[in-house]
């Protein structure tokens, strides 16, 4: 059989990587096998737990992280240090939970899988430090159910760490107690939303919760809870080892955001894959590293960080891929894993595919999302068949507006609105070609009549 089992791969070999320049991936083996406890410790793994626990106070840890400004790598971009400083903690308060969001399902994103499968001890070490800083007594790794290999790697790592005393009571003689369990999901993209994740962890339907209270005030089972993405957490040990200044200068002149980023490329390029590079690396450099587009293809447009980010153009390739720069260009950095689209791709079809995803994955809790997304899909399908009617594009724009930030319960629908609105903005002519132009004697296609007699406007 010629088809291969999938294996996640990084494009730098070990001799190109140093801990000081590649704090996330320096640990990885060239053969792609999982780094076990012995090898991790031989590379000075868990040294930061020994260095910090009992020697620095939680406040000192948080101050270092705030100064480093690790921005949330799940796509939100919120400072992990600031988030940790807002967690309720104190002598008269219950100790809470440290939750790792490993529910990687953002369309086009395949970065956390690398760390989970190949260096799970880095995540455990990071969570121990996070637990210490946030006064958590327990950690859960919320892993999507389809990541079977990652589940094996994490389960084995937890057992190894527990047996070696890195988890459990009195870790490294510091008096700090903390343990971690793996929780695997059963599908649904919405579980990656942090409050939906907490509901799912509690064994409920994954509907988001109203904020406030924020999870740091009242999260899992009403206790203070911190939710961080895998890649975000995995930055923590190196920041505490080398300091905030080191982290800030990793990106040099490229970006105001410090550190490195796992960047990746997929789509019709010669060499897809992942690289750990300084934050602020331009998309054009990634396209070069990917060897350019397939023969005969040119780049039409690209998504900077998953299906919930806005499309950008070839003229944006020089922009630094960091949170502020990409936002200023009208999109979002998101997960920083690029999807490159070739010039032969119909944008109406691609956006229809994206909106079908968001419509299916809506939890159904609030109306703009539950009803608005299937409506958008219906309009896009009509345009794709060339059966659109005048007004459909304006209606799509209106739907995107009505699903924008602040108008829905969580960020799911705003995420769906971004690629829709930006595709219409940049490629309006393609959408217009989907509008039927009947001849004098032809019948104009019609949407079924709505209850109030208006055409296609039932929900308004």
């Amino acid at each position, binding site marked *: 059989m*010629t*088809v291969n089992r*999938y294996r996640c791969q990084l494009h730098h070999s070990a001799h190109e990587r140093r801990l000081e320049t590649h704090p996330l991936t320096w640990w990885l083996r060239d053969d792609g096998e999982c780094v076990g406890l012995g090898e991790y410790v031989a590379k000075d793994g868990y040294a930061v737990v020994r260095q910090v626990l009992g020697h620095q106070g939680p406040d000192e840890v948080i101050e270092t992280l705030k100064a480093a400004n690790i921005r949330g790598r799940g796509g939100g971009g919120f400072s992990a240090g600031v988030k940790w400083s807002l967690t309720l903690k104190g002598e008269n308060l219950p100790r809470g939970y440290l939750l790792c969001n490993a529910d990687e399902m953002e369309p086009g*994103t395949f970065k956390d899988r690398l760390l989970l499968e190949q260096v799970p001890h880095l995540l455990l070490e990071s969570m121990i430090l996070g637990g210490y800083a946030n006064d958590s007594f327990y950690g859960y790794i919320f892993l999507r159910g*389809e990541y079977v290999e990652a589940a094996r790697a994490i389960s084995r790592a937890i057992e190894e760490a527990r047996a070696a005393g890195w988890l459990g009571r009195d870790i490294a003689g510091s008096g700090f107690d903390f343990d971690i369990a793996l929780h695997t999901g059963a599908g649904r993209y919405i579980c990656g939303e942090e409050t939906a994740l907490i509901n799912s962890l*509690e*064994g409920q339907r994954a509907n988001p919760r109203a904020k406030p209270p924020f999870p740091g005030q009242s999260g899992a089972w009403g206790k203070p809870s911190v939710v961080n993405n895998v890649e975000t957490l995995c930055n923590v040990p190196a920041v505490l080892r080398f300091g905030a200044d080191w982290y800030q200068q990793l990106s040099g002149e490229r970006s105001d955001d410090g550190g490195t980023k796992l960047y990746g*490329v997929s789509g019709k390029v010669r060499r897809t894959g992942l690289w750990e590079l300084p934050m602020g690396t331009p998309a054009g450099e990634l396209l070069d590293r990917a060897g350019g587009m397939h023969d005969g293809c040119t780049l039409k447009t690209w998504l900077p960080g998953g299906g919930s980010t806005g499309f950008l153009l070839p003229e944006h390739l020089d922009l630094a891929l960091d949170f502020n720069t990409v936002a200023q260009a009208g999109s979002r950095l998101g997960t920083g894993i690029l999807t490159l689209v070739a010039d032969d791709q119909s944008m109406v079809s691609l956006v229809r595919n994206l909106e079908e995803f968001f419509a299916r994955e809506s*939890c159904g809790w609030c109306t703009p999302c539950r009803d608005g997304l299937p409506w958008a899909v219906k309009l896009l399908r009509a345009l794709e068949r060339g059966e659109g009617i005048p007004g459909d594009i304006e209606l799509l724009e209106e739907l995107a507006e009505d699903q924008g930030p602040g108008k829905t319960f969580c960020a799911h629908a705003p995420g769906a609105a971004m690629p829709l609105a930006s595709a219409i903005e940049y490629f309006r002519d393609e959408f217009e070609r989907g509008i039927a132009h009947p001849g004098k004697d032809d019948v104009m296609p019609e949407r079924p009549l709505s209850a109030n007699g208006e055409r296609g406007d039932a929900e308004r």
Partner: protein
Amino acid sequence: MNGNSHLLASDGDGFVLDPEDRRTIEQERDHYEQPQAACIEALKIVQRRHGWVPDGAIVAIAEALGIGPAEVEGVATFYSLVFRQPVGRHVILVCDSSSCFLTGYDALREALSSRLGIGFGQTTSDGRFTLLPVCCLGACDSGPVLMIDDDTYGPVAVEDVADLLESYP
């Protein structure tokens, strides 16, 4: 959905949790502050043994966790990887998200459908395969991607489909 009537017949209202599954569920329950948290895992445990989650298992899990059957059913019907109908011996999850869409998803889905004679949500008449779509499988550098049971494959060319299916008897 033919060919699975034996599953229905053996798992009717008289459903009893396998003793080993009951023990595993009770262990899972202790991983959490409240027993309801174990219900997703409990559904997966039952599904591993039976292939799907019959009605009787909803009641049995509810009893094991001390929560209402409606709570368990609410959860079971929310999550896409919990199957409330019989499925084939092997479940094929085809990634239908954007990167795979750009790299050949439509052709792959058509090749699977025509080879198996079924569409999404259906099971072959010999009870061997069920075909389902799935969210981005996080293997976008190798699209188009699919999973068969616990195995992820990519890129899967249309001409590889027959051989790949043959390796799952």
